[in-house]
């Protein structure tokens, strides 16, 4: 009898369990059913359907809501936008792609991202948008195929506050009289050190904002700054970025990295041993409050600077300076311009949905309405020939990027960090930089780690 009771209990448990499982599979089929219903309806003239877009940039999530409404009104197609929280895009994409109803439009962060998502990236060679791409070399390609279309161009360098610089130039015994004279590392160093000596007169706490080396806040150094020596190394050794030759580096310009990094550390608002708890926000706030004259960051930083309470930096005073590291002929070097944002379309999605996604991105970057969103709301510098000169964003740093891009005398530094082996490599390098700043790690060990981990992380 007792055994029988147990049996009943077990059966009941299993029965309810299986009903849960059945429930799941039913909802699964129903969602695919509704998805496959969409194309049937869209055979009419005005297509109605849904595009599921997984957005990378949290700061523009609200704008996409507006775009979605406008697009729905114009074409009847629903644009469903989901945004991953900052720093969690790969995680979110990983779980979203596992769903039956996976994103159709998503983004990859360059050649490395493409390798991870190879099985999901459709060939975009024949899309309308690709034809409008100004610089075809910017796209993520593999053989003949095009798998990622860049949708924004960004630039970074040393942002400086011209008001403080002019104040310095006016001092007697200033090492330079105008920004034009600062066009190499030696001069930058001379000026920065002299400014540090006179920081009382200038009313600043340090020339450079804090070198934020807190875990997760160190990308300006372990990624952006490290791009320069790596760029020169690849360029000098004529390495094809798409080949396996990028799997090893010598870090031959490590000393150049050290030059500028030491300059940042020694002429900073904060003493080096305290940098482990500084965030990017901290250092942008220092710049905005006029405590520092320079900060390394990109054109996306303007909204951050202008948003700081008590911001004293005027729109007309904020400018870019290229990051000089003591390379030969660096007078001709420009700021770093590129992107790590590429549109990709999910190959595994139904064909008609892929078409809808391609139509949408084309609309966004070629129609007047879409372009207005891109310029005024997303504030993107778009890399497409459909944008005329008066259709470019007007914030001061974006204008600076455009100015540097169109300066034919200077050579832009591309964003080669898209071939850095992995996030773990970058994180470990950042941690080593912090230990170097704190004086607990020798520079030799830092460079050794850079070379070794580049190789070991590339092998995976």
């Amino acid at each position, binding site marked *: 009898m*007792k055994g029988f*009771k*147990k049996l*009943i*209990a077990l059966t*009941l*448990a299993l029965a*309810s*369990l299986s009903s*849960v499982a059945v429930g799941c599979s039913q909802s699964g089929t129903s969602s695919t059913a509704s998805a496959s219903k969409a194309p049937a309806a869209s055979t009419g003239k005005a297509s109605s359907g849904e595009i599921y877009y997984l957005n990378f940039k949290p700061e523009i999530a609200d704008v996409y809501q507006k775009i979605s409404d406008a697009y729905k009104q114009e074409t009847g197609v629903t644009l469903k936008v989901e945004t991953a929280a900052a720093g969690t895009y*790969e*995680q979110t994409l*990983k*779980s979203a*792609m*596992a769903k039956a109803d996976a994103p159709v439009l998503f983004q990859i962060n360059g050649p490395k991202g493409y390798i*991870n998502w190879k099985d999901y990236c459709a060939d975009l060679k024949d899309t309308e948008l690709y034809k409008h791409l100004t610089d075809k070399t910017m796209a993520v390609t593999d053989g003949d195929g095009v798998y990622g279309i860049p949708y924004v161009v960004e630039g970074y360098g040393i942002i400086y506050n011209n008001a403080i610089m002019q104040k310095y130039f006016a001092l007697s015994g200033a090492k330079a009289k105008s920004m034009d004279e600062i066009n190499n590392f030696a001069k930058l160093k001379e000026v920065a050190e002299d400014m540090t000596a006179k920081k009382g007169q200038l009313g600043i706490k340090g020339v450079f904002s804090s070198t934020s*080396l*807190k*875990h*997760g806040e160190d990308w300006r150094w372990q990624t952006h700054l490290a791009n320069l020596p790596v760029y020169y190394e690849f360029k000098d050794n004529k390495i094809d970025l798409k080949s396996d030759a990028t799997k090893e580096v010598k870090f031959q310009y490590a000393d150049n990295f050290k030059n500028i990094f030491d300059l940042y550390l020694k002429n900073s608002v904060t*003493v080096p*041993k*305290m940098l*482990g*708890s500084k965030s990017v926000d901290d250092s942008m706030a220092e710049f905005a409050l006029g405590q520092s004259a320079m900060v390394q960051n990109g054109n996306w930083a303007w909204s951050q600077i202008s948003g700081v309470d008590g911001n004293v930096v005027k729109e007309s005073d904020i400018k870019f300076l290229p990051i000089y590291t003591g390379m030969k002929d660096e007078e001709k070097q420009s700021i770093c311009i590129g992107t790590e944002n590429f549109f990709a379309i999910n190959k595994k999605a139904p064909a008609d949905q892929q078409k809808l996604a391609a139509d949408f991105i084309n609309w966004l970057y070629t129609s007047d309405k879409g372009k207005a969103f891109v310029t005024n709301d997303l504030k993107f510098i778009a890399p497409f020939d459909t944008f005329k000169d008066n259709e470019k964003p007007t914030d001061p740093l974006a204008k600076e990027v455009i100015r540097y891009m169109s300066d034919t005398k200077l050579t832009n530094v591309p964003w080669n960090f898209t071939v850095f082996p*992995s*996030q*773990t490599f970058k*994180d*470990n390098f950042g*941690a*080593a930089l*912090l*230990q170097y700043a*704190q004086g*607990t790690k020798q520079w030799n060990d830092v460079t050794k780690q850079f070379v070794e981990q580049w190789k070991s992380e590339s092998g*995976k």
Partner: protein
Amino acid sequence: MQKTLKKYFAFFTLPTVLAFITVFLIPFVFGVYLSFTKFNTVNDAQWVGFSNYIRAFTEDRDFLNALFFTVKFAIVSVVLINVFAFMLALLLTRKIRGTNVFRTVFFMPDLIGGIVLGYIWQLIINGFLAAFNVDITFSATYGYWGLMILMNWQLIGYMMIIYIAGIQNIPPELIEAAEIDGANSWQVLKSVTVPMVMPSITICTFLTLTNSFKLFDQNLALTAGAPGKESAMLAMDIFNTFYGRQGYEGVGQAKAVVFFIIVALIAYLHLRLTRSKEVEN
């Protein structure tokens, strides 16, 4: 009565059993299965055997370092927390004025979440270290003692309450008898109080031990492993492996299984050891 209970056993336990199966047993079994596979999304797992376990220990020293750090932390924190909590409990069962206020105050830190506590203590500790021109990321020793202070601050009050309950349950006549026999207060403590609160000691050491091993929020908020990964504990290393690296999901899962076995083993040994020391009331 017994019979009725038996009759409705299945009926009354079913909801709990179901919940246990769906939210614990199935994920657990699935998790163990995943530790033997290579996967990107959980749908496309491929069987790889024990290679994840081998990779967890051989590919880098992160896991072993974290294990060592955690063991070091757990031993010291179990001792410190229980000694302090017991001392406080003794003090606050002496009918001094304001006992209840003190009990409440000491218990309060336990009501605050680990992440919040971590950030608060980070501010305090960095503020203190700023006088020496360094911060908590400077050395793993700072992180270690920072975590220790945080854990003590958070758990002492909770353990204290358990000890107070234990001490209050000691029959007064036992202590009285001991005193009449001429025992001094140290002898009373050693031969009457401690043996009588042994069940509380079992619970408290068990709770502190498992809590120290599973520590995550506080670790993440206070140091996030800095410098490098030197102050990362087991749970954090597992999290970083699983979420931080492409192609390491299975390895993270394998580490989690090893972690489970370690904690379960320690808890089991500990219970056997302390249970044997408890006295019947």
